[in-house]
């Protein structure tokens, strides 16, 4: 990555890794600096962030009563 200014294409290429906190500090800071100045990339990052939040929520689902009973009975036998 260019140290002074990275392009929008480079941001798009690394955005997922950035949002997953998988970039090193310098690369991450470069993207943050770009996002502060580029409205379109900022909007894109916000969109991806919000979508990821909604995806993360899909891991929460009310457990069926049948499973709760099964686990309770199992634990009583431990």
């Amino acid at each position, binding site marked *: 990555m260019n140290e002074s200014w990275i392009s929008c294409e480079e941001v798009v290429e690394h955005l997922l890794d950035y949002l997953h906190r998988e970039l090193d500090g310098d690369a991450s800071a470069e993207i943050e600096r770009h996002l502060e100045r580029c409205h379109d990339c900022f909007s894109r990052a916000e969109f991806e962030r*919000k979508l990821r939040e909604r995806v993360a929520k899909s891991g929460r689902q009310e457990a069926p009563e049948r499973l709760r009973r099964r*686990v309770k009975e199992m634990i009583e036998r431990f």
Partner: protein
Amino acid sequence: MATSTRQSTPVVSQQARRDQFEQQVTLLMDRLYGTALRLARHPDDAEDVVAEAISTAWSKLDQLNDLDHMEGWLFRILHHTFISHWRRRQCRQNREVELEPENGDNRFSLFEKLHQPFLLWWGTPEKEFINTLLQEDISKAIDNLPDAYRIVTVLVEVEGYSYEQAARLLDLPLGTIRSRLWRARGLLQKALWQQGREAGLSKCGGQHPGASGGDV
């Protein structure tokens, strides 16, 4: 300390330990089931995975120094349980890991489909799209991902695993995790786009010539 005490290490009775275990498991049950369901897709399989993981956790409880740290530990057991179930099934059915052929979907971007330049984020079609999406639409789109993409999505996007943790659990190179996530993101967004259009959520499909990404 100068005081003479005859205190002994408190011994937690088996019953108290079991009660504490049950209490924690009960609190985590919705998340355990939700994660198992996203991984396994079918409610019966998800229930089996949760029950087996809880049974394994109890049998290994001595390895856990502090029951207050049970959450992360129990989820790791849940993921291991699912992965071994899944590997056994793949092996039994003599199936290769299902991978979608490369056709440009990994570049599909909902943002590029929806975004209209010069609008501020809080009044944009992409924000409206996200706000209108139902949680069940997202779950459905995840469930429809091929195994290879769904599993990394659940581990990284839902459970917050790092690429390295996911790579270790799945015994895959880091680069494979990264490329599958990238691909999964494209497939997921394309599915949401299609579902959204079918439900009439997006009023702006194809209206902005600046948008890139393959047409659906």
